[in-house]
């Protein structure tokens, strides 16, 4: 029925088209609202990209500011800080993606093996909790746990693993692992939801068959569960690769300090610092354009890979 209607629509005569328009006027009025809203809040900022190619002055506006071509981009890429910032953003994005994915899969598989519905439910409910906490709260908690008198140092000292309390926030080598841990702590339970759904969708007869062949729990996981969720893992990985550059603001901003800023600053923090605080709008915009451009390229590549896998989820 619906299919018939759709086919009719693609070659409707003019009179019919007008009649449809009249019947759908409510939908059309709302559409105009949504297009206007979208143009204003999502598409208008794209016009602002012109600032990246100008020496933008607020009093002149975009129309009258001086055009300087790629000068801002040139100064960006000759700035060692910006290059370091790109490295930090990419590195933390990739580390976080890998760490959170592995933990989520591991957690989903093991949770699925818990015997007893109630136990499972309790663990799962607890596992969601950190997702609902803001990064402000999470970084506050981390500061407490990792401080000189925090629980981590206390355990390390009690088991004589370190001679004296470690100041985790003063050493560059700890920063990326701390950020990765925080992401794992916050999102493992949440990210596992989708893997759990994939595991539940596996045909139970496969497990029964495996059991008849004498497979233990380990074998079942290796030969049934993991192959069963492989396509979900691949799709989620591909989808998230496109977002790798977007994952670098709140926690780095909240946890970073002067001692570790060489490894903690990300592109967004750089934009905030130069664009908003120093009011160099053109430089900030240029730095942001580069990020968007890389993100779009990554998304397009991932989309292509996804298509080759026979999945069309992105576009």
């Amino acid at each position, binding site marked *: 029925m619906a299919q018939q209607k759709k086919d009719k629509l693609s070659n409707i005569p003019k009179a019919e088209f007008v009649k449809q328009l009249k019947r759908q006027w409510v939908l059309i009025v709302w559409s105009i609202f949504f297009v206007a809203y979208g143009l204003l809040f999502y598409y208008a900022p794209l016009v602002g990209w012109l600032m990246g190619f100008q020496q933008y002055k607020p009093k002149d506006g975009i129309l009258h500011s001086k055009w300087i071509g790629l000068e801002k981009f040139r100064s960006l890429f000759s700035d060692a800080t910006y290059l370091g910032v790109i490295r930090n953003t990419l590195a933390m994005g990739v580390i976080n993606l890998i760490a959170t994915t592995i933990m989520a899969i591991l957690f989903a598989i093991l949770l699925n093996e818990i015997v007893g519905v109630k136990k499972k439910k309790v663990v799962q409910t607890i596992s969601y909790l950190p997702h609902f906490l803001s990064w402000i709260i999470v970084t506050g908690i981390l500061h407490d746990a990792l401080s000189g008198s925090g629980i981590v140092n206390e355990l390390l000292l009690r088991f004589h693993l370190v001679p004296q309390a470690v100041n985790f926030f003063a050493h560059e080598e700890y920063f990326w692992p701390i950020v990765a841990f925080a992401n794992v702590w916050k999102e493992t339970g949440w990210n596992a939801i989708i893997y759990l759904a994939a595991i539940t969708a596996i045909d139970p007869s496969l497990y029964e068959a495996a059991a008849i062949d004498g497979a233990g*729990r380990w074998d079942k996981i290796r030969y049934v569960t993991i192959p069963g969720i492989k396509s979900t893992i691949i799709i989620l990985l591909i989808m998230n690769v496109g977002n790798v550059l977007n994952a670098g603001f709140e926690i780095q901003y909240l946890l970073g300090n002067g001692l570790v800023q060489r490894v903690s600053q990300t592109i967004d923090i750089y934009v905030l610092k130069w664009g908003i605080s120093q009011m160099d709008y053109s430089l900030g915009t240029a730095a942001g354009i580069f990020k968007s451009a890389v*993100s779009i390229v990554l998304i397009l590549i991932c989309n292509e890979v996804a298509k080759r896998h026979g999945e069309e989820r992105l576009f």
Partner: protein
Amino acid sequence: MSKSEVTTTKKKKLSTADIAFYTFNTIFMAVFVIVTLYPVLNTLAISFNDGLDALRGGIYLIPRKFSVKSYITVLKKDDLLVGAYISVARTIVGTLLSLVTCAILAFIVSRKNFLFARHLSLFWVITMYVNGGMIPIFLLYKGLHLTNTFWVYVIPGMVSAFNMLVIRTYMNGIPDSFEESAQLDGAGYTTIFLKIISPLCKPVYATIALFVAVYQWNSWFDVMLYNRMSSKLTTLQYELMKLLASVTSQSTSAQSMKNSTSSITPVSMRAAATIITMLPIVCIYPFLQQYFVSGLTLGGVKE
């Protein structure tokens, strides 16, 4: 009954490898639960402990010297009260606005015979991938005189393509016959949306409402960026951030604080503020589990 039967039959067949597996699994889950809960419970214990006494350290899950002074002090601070008020307001207003607009948009683009459904859908999906960036957006809001107003919290992010897609997927699953029979009865699109489709969409509306509410409640960056100058528009999260910043900058002088006489310290105050800030969400989310779980699985996409 049958559950315990299953367990006993399983136990009979357990091999050494399986026992090793279940032991490992139990330990893993125990560690997982402890690592997840301990920091939160520890903050709770510190918040109910006398501030000065807490600086001595050694408080784990139970307050040593019970006191509610930190809470009283926090609740007396004007900034935090304003923050709580604005946080609640933006969560309610923002969630309502966002849910209503996203639902209408999803309804429009999921009408199979709407002439422009595909165009409108594409127009919005593009916004998920192309983003103007921080500076142009900042200047836009400034130009629209949204900065230093409450509306900058709820208007700009109101319509979101991701939320629209989740609702649309759900609406697509509703049989066309509902709409068709209503149309035969002479119902217009407004009636179909309000009386036929929306009642069926309650679960997905709950999912989206939860997503938006959590986002609104936890936001702080927009406060810092757009409303830093208006103390009347501060939020709980932003005030908490300021407390955190003051604690970390003073942590070196914790030693000197031990000699002070006040029983309220930044550490205990922040603990109390943290608990107050997380309380509403912690109380609500366990009851909405089925909604967000199904919402996530349904969207097929991760946040």
